């Protein structure tokens, strides 16, 4: 039995040491800044991480990137934030998994005197003020405006008349809700267009496939789809192909993932709204760094948003 125990301890020790090495391989010495992502396996957030890492290298920051196993798991995200507070990081950059649920964690960081920079998803201002919590800076793109761009594009493509379906994100996520609001607002201008179905696919590709397949069953005459994220749009594109309707339905996504850009180029998707997540990550680290130095930072940094279509892809290289 003793032998077993020693064996386990050795294995745990070696695994931990091994992983610890990985953790500390980034530049030592500089201030430690943590970036807490919603998830580490979505291209949008992987780009954000890359941007943040590049900025950290430039500034000599020791960057720690952490994410919960599941995007919807706000409690795990809170645990990660609590643990990072215990590890006394100098600043926290967070992409909230829940606009309201993140507030108690922000409050804890405030009490520990750690500045908080929020990235991508806005924190619910009411919950924030009720908890008397503060954030130092918000960095994100104008999701409302992005939704509006998508709506205007679809209205134009359908010539002001037709049926539209929407794939929503996880309800209660500020990003998805704002995109949806902007999209609906844009369509108000064209009464000939009707939203016949609006359902959530929880930001996921396979659910995008299934949900849109179901929508196609009940509304075979749907003329356009707006998916609140590219992953869901890419799932829907497969569903459209499976129904032999490629090219008959206008598909607009959000995030401009590399795969979505390819699909726009191929024509299986019509447009996607570009958010520059790498830029967001870099800006977040930069703001956190300046906060540690005691400098002032802008309360809100809006990273530009852009509609990517086949035309814009062909006409310029800057969209890369």
């Amino acid at each position, binding site marked *: 039995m003793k032998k077993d125990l020693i064996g386990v301890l050795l294995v745990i020790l070696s695994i931990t040491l091994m992983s610890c090495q990985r953790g500390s391989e980034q530049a030592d010495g500089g201030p430690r800044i943590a970036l807490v992502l919603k998830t*580490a396996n979505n291209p949008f957030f992987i780009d954000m991480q890359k941007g943040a890492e590049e900025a950290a290298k430039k500034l000599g920051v020791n960057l720690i990137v952490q994410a919960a196993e599941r995007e919807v798991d706000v409690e795990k995200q809170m645990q990660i934030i609590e643990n990072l507070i215990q590890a006394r990081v100098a600043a926290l950059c967070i992409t909230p998994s829940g606009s309201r649920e993140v507030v108690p964690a922000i409050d804890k960081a405030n009490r520990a005197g750690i500045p908080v920079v929020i990235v991508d998803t806005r924190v619910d201002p009411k919950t924030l003020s009720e908890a008397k919590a503060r954030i130092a800076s918000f960095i994100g793109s104008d999701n409302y405006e992005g939704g509006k761009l998508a709506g205007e594009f679809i209205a134009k493509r359908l010539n002001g008349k037709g049926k539209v379906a929407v794939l929503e994100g996880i309800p209660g996520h500020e990003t998805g809700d704002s995109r949806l609001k902007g999209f609906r607002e844009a369509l108000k201008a064209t009464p000939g267009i009707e939203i016949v179905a609006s359902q959530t696919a929880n930001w996921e590709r396979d659910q995008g496939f299934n949900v849109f397949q179901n929508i196609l069953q009940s509304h075979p005459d749907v003329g356009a789809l707006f998916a609140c994220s590219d992953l869901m749009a890419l799932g829907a594109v497969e569903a459209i192909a499976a129904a032999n309707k490629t090219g008959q339905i206008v598909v607009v996504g959000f995030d401009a993932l590399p795969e979505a850009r390819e699909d726009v180029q191929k024509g299986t998707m019509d447009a996607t709204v570009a958010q520059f997540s790498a830029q967001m990550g870099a800006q977040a680290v930069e703001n956190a760094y300046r906060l540690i130095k005691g400098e002032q930072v802008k309360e809100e940094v809006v990273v530009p948003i852009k509609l990517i279509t086949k035309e814009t892809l062909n006409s310029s290289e800057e969209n890369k």
Partner: protein
Amino acid sequence: MRLRGIALRQDFFLHYGRQLGTLAGLLGLMVVLWALTPHFLTISNLLNVAEQATIIAIIAVGMTFVIITAGIDLSVGSVLAFSGVVMASALHQGVFLPLGLAAGLGTGLLCGLVNGLLITVGRLPPFIATLGMMSVARGTALMFTEGRPISGFSEGFRSMATGELLRVPTPVVIMVAVYVVAHFVLKRTKLGRYTYAIGGNEEAALLSGISVRSYKTIVYGLAGMLSGLAAILLTARLNSAQPIAGMMYELDAIAATVIGGTSLMGGEGTVVGTLIGALIMAVLRNGLNLLGVSSFIQQVVIGSVIILAVLIDMALKRRGR
């Protein structure tokens, strides 16, 4: 009865030895973390870890009872979400606080009892019955809230998570209380003895006159009610009840139970072991965060620890026999 008492006493060293093994694992892990980071072994971090373990630890108590009967409960995470949103909406309607809490516990209890009846009266395998409940409870929670979280509660309610008793966070106090009661129930009461008896040999339990149906139903009801309790703490902690809360918590609870030495075949296990199992998982996550380990490696490490713990447990069992 007397014969079984002797058998239990012979098993005692086996149980005891295994719990010591799990405890040694936890302590070893803590020593390693202490050596690796100065931030681990501080009072504030240890309290932080204990608080983070509470939700899974409380669900795992119910899971331990269920697994000792040789059953499984896959619905605990969904039942947690459902109980949470029912309680939250009751509180938002301005219901008196204790009544709101009772609504949360009651919803959990009810779901658990339905599980129990499906298994005992309906004769469904526990895996199937609770798999169905997992989906039904989640779906009902989503319907009930139209998918949206219910947030913003009174200070009084939130103190369930934010309060302290002698500097120990309230959730930790509640967790310890639950474990003390559960340990007593399992070791000293009829319900506890019958739980082991049913899991050890259901046929024999039935023949010796135990009302297997009622006791099994009670055990599943208990598991549901503890999910309701976890829902109260989680909602207070996040100041929000989400219909998508607690996804896959059943797996964490099963892992804590199994790491703690409870056999999935039923008939043996202790809540003390489960507590240590839940703490091992929480300490591991905490340590990996403190060290800044990538989240992908974390999953590999946690999975490896679960497999290792059970491998050792089985090796010990073979040697014990």
